[in-house]
């Protein structure tokens, strides 16, 4: 396998598994990311996103599975992968006691850029940090730290970006700028794998994957993921929706109830049973019901609940067996 990322897939992994203390945190994960794609990685907290990303860049050794990253084997060729990957960690991990410029120069030197000083100076300018380059990284606001971290990732000119929740805690305008940059980079041929909790960001991705409890539950374009979920959805509005939501949740045939603006989204995997289930509620004139399209968020919440139920069942059956 001689990797210069020449194949169609920049990331191509199969059956990745990682256990911590006997617990499978990532289980049998298979995914492919194409060159130039912006691949969104979604899932609830603790679902294994960070763990998966770490396995891709050689920071964790998988307990099972195999695959390639940029054409290099993730198990044996991590040293060849690292120089060409920019990994932005979830938690800020540049040096807080170094200034912006010193951090960027450090990165430039580690990756062996010709003129580390010039490269760092250019990056500072492009990041809009000119005039603040001597400020300590630890004194930056959260949003600016994220910007600096992204700048440090891009600085060495990587072929693949692994961004772990790059916009957590970033204001909307900065988030928009950030995504414009990401799209610009992808247009230049960079491949981006980005984890996020924001639905609007998911919708800006070429394709997405949804992971919960270490299992990849769904993947594809946003439309495909919604389509595959086969969810029927109604929107209901009226007074005291909180109480209504609780009642609906206990009703057979309704799989998911989620607030949507000032109304509720009520969804079911079986359209007919859903219709039957909401009929008694429709009788009340207090509430206005209308059929609607499920959103990505509805699908995710449903997927998560589904897998949580499976997970709980497994845990219970495991418990009775032992």
């Amino acid at each position, binding site marked *: 396998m001689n990797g210069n990322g020449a194949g169609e897939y920049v990331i191509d992994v199969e059956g990745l598994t990682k256990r911590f203390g006997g617990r499978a945190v990532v289980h049998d994960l298979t995914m492919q990311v194409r060159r130039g794609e912006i691949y969104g990685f979604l899932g609830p907290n603790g679902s294994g996103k960070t763990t998966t990303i770490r396995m891709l860049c050689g*920071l964790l050794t998988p307990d099972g599975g195999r695959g390639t990253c940029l054409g290099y084997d993730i198990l044996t060729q991590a040293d060849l992968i*690292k120089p060409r990957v920019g990994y932005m960690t979830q938690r800020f*991990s540049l040096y807080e006691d170094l200034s912006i410029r010193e951090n960027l120069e450090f990165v430039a030197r580690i990756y062996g*850029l010709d003129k580390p000083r010039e490269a760092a100076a250019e990056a500072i300018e492009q990041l809009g940090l000119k005039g603040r380059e001597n400020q300590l990284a630890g004194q930056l606001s959260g949003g600016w730290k994220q910007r600096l971290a992204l700048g440090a990732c891009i*600085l060495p000119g990587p072929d693949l970006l692994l961004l772990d929740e790059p916009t957590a805690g970033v204001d909307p305008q900065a988030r928009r700028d950030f995504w414009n940059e990401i799209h610009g980079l992808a247009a230049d041929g960079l491949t981006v794998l980005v984890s996020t909790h924001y639905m609007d960001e998911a919708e800006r991705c070429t394709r997405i994957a949804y992971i919960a409890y270490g299992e990849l539950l769904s993947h594809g374009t946003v439309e495909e993921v919604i389509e595959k979920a086969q969810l029927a959805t109604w929107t209901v509005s009226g007074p005291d929706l909180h109480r209504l939501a609780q009642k609906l949740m206990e009703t057979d045939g309704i799989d998911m109830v989620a607030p949507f603006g000032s109304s509720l989204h009520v969804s079911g995997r079986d359209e007919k049973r859903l219709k039957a289930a909401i009929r008694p509620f429709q009788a009340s004139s207090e509430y206005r019901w209308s059929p609607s399209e499920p959103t990505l968020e509805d699908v995710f919440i449903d997927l998560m609940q589904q897998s949580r139920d499976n997970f709980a069942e497994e845990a219970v059956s495991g418990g009775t067996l032992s």
Partner: protein
Amino acid sequence: MNIGAPHRAARPGAFTRFSAMFVKEFIQLRRDRVTFATMIMIPLLQIILFGFAINTTPTNLPAAVLMQEHNDITRSVLAALRNTSYFRFVIEAESEAEMDHLIRSGEVLFAVEIPAGFERAIRRGDKPAILVVADATDPVASGTALAALQGTIERSLERDRVIPPNREDVQPFEFRQHRRYNPAGVTRLNIVPGLLGTILTMTMLIFTALSVTREVERGTMESLLAMPISPLELMLGKITPYIFAGAIQAAIIFGCGWFIFSVPLEGDPLLLIGLTLLFITTNLSIGYSFSTVAGNQLQAIQMTFMFFLPSILLSGFMFPFAGMPRWAQWIGEALPMTHYLRIVRGIMLKGASLPDLYREAGLLLLLMLIAMTIAILRFRRTLD
């Protein structure tokens, strides 16, 4: 935006990565005010406190005398001993057994035995032996006092015209120290070599013992591990700035030794500098290897002290190396400070040159390579 892409190097070299780490560590060292202040204050405080505390001439050390013969000469010797400020002759022992007991029980630190037939032997020029038993648990004190003892006895015999003055190096009597104690090499001048070894061991170990664990605890290790730097480059980049720090410390201690305590430098200064740098690097490597083994900074500090304590006790700094039991000597041989003390004493006090010190220097080098190997092998390249 395509930051840095035009600067992408064709083949990033090991040296640039090493220098990246070097520059970064240097900045961090300089920025950390507390560490920087400690680096200056520790040697200054220690050399001043210890130097003055230990160097002030010890006086009134409890001593016993055993006179196997009573006559004018021996009485004159005893009177002379009483007149020095070094000793306080608390007891005149009746027998050798009693003398041994007094020493062992710690009632006296010294016992002087004047043998039977001393007067006749000395007049005949037979070089009789005066036996001195010294409690070496306080070697600095005993060493100074012992150095004074011989001169005191000689002067008293000269004054009484038992022996001629202006003898040309002919010793009228033999001055025999008890075999188990060997305070001969321990003099005031050993404080500086000893402190040099102690301070460099302690501070160098702590500097690097924290370096890897600090990256882990601050979370910067995750980025660092994702970067294309090898464990060897990382280690060398982390160690090198502290060689400069160690050199500054060593210079401070040498300077104090020279100007305040008038310690001589008999041997080659360049050799001393070279081997001091080797010793510094060895300690840094050991500290770094702790850092790769320890789980957090606290553990790293504990390991440092675990290593530091035997370095003080078993290196020949506190107690004469030759007087230690065999097992303790073996441990001592595995400590860099043991070899460094011999090197510094050799160069500063005895004017030793490199051929005399091959063994010690070679062992320092060996210890350094072992530590570095452990560090490289133990370095966790993943977050598992």
